[in-house]
């Protein structure tokens, strides 16, 4: 089943795009897009890279680690930006997350 609503993205979250939001490279327009109900979003390069790493297994912290290493950039700054972008996507209804079973 889809994850719970009202997602609050944190370093520990393990987000993933839900079934109804598909990341795709649009060959005609030469741009990455997220296809969603009645919407087409145009994520920028960094957003695309983040979303490609969000597989429901990696945590947001893992993603920040990976990007910080790749770009030799400060991890905290990257983490802040990644959380902000993912929270924006979650608020639009285009992000879900995998959670441990609590019962």
């Amino acid at each position, binding site marked *: *089943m*889809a994850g719970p*609503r*009202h*997602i609050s993205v944190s370093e520990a979250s393990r987000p993933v795009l*839900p*079934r*109804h939001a*598909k990341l*795709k490279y*649009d*060959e*005609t*327009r*030469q*741009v990455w*897009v*997220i*296809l969603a*109900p*009645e*919407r*087409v*979003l*145009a*994520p*920028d390069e*960094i*957003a695309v890279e983040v979303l490609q790493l969000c597989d429901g297994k990696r945590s947001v912290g893992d993603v920040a680690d990976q990007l910080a290493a790749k770009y030799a950039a400060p991890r905290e700054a990257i983490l802040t930006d990644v959380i902000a*972008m993912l929270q*924006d*996507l*979650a*608020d*639009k*209804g285009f992000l879900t997350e995998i959670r441990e079973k609590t019962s």
Partner: protein
Amino acid sequence: MSDVTIPPSDSLAVLEKQRSTAETFGIPLAVLLEITHRCPLQCPYCSNPVELDRSAKELTTAEWKKVLTELAEIGVLQVHFSGGEPTARKDLVELVKHASDVGLYTNLITSAVLLTRERLSDLADAGLCHVQISFQGIEEGLADRVGGYKGGHRKKLEVARWTRELDLPLTVNAVMHRQNLHQLPDMIQMALDLDADRLEVANVQYYGWALKNRAALMPTVAQLDKCTRTVVEARERLKGRLTIDYVVPDYYALRPKKCMGGWGRQFFNISPAGKVLPCHAAESITGLDFESVRSNHSIAWIWQNSEAFNRYRGTGWMKEPCKSCEFREIDFGGCRCQAFALTGDAANTDPACALSPLHETIFKQAEAEAGGETSRFLYRNFAGGTLESGNDA
């Protein structure tokens, strides 16, 4: 082709359709496929033309598949399977499968009453991405009366539950008018209870069947104000939980809507018989010849070059008051179908605009109808409509 631009400040910009196509008339991002006009419901505001395509004229399975392949090749990203009732086509699963195979994002716009759980499950397996179910009200008395189909409301609720059980995202389409606007707060709650992700609060647009039923459907100004306040409040309260799209009837506006984003700028649909149309009501405009996917032309050629698409593109066709109006490239003179239906000439200013010489008359007429006694429907069907019995004045 670089017709999509992304503002650098926003990492998740919504691709506004006009940005993708405005000056170049690049291929639209999404296309509406009205695969049949057959439908078990008889809603008096149906957006199909009054002259419906009979089943013998419908494109075959092979023809629709060819259309889907071609759409994907020319850069369309999403297709909406609609109708009529798209599930009335026996080959729907096959068509959705084909659309998925060629890389299209698929959306089903359905009344839901013909679906079984097994068929919905087959559609999900075929790659269906999203389901939109229309509701006519919040309880079966009114809802079944509006749809002209007994047991319809109960069935819709059942299919909506199956949709979420199958983990398909759900949009509730609530078509609103004078006779059901009082149910809007409960309709929002119903969408939440059904675990929908999106709610479309769509006030009826008055062309075709709805224009014939205008006196029974037109809301009052007070109702509409209340409706808008309800939507604004719910959007704030349900942010991140339920997305609410809102369509207002334009009769009470001072400025017309930018219908279809402007004729031939960002939208086309394909009719059951394969006509490529700038708007799903375009066939109501007489004197325009629409090309078919059965012709020798490609869909891209029809979009770029056909007479019907170019007739009202841009601003060159305009007469006064549109021609010299500072808003001419903002709203493109409103809706061509509405201009034709209400003035007899599609090149006239849409009377929804306060600058139209007919605006005052039509507004007054709508207001009078909204306050009137008529509640009886003319139901939509292939026979040209059937008047509701037993209801009304």
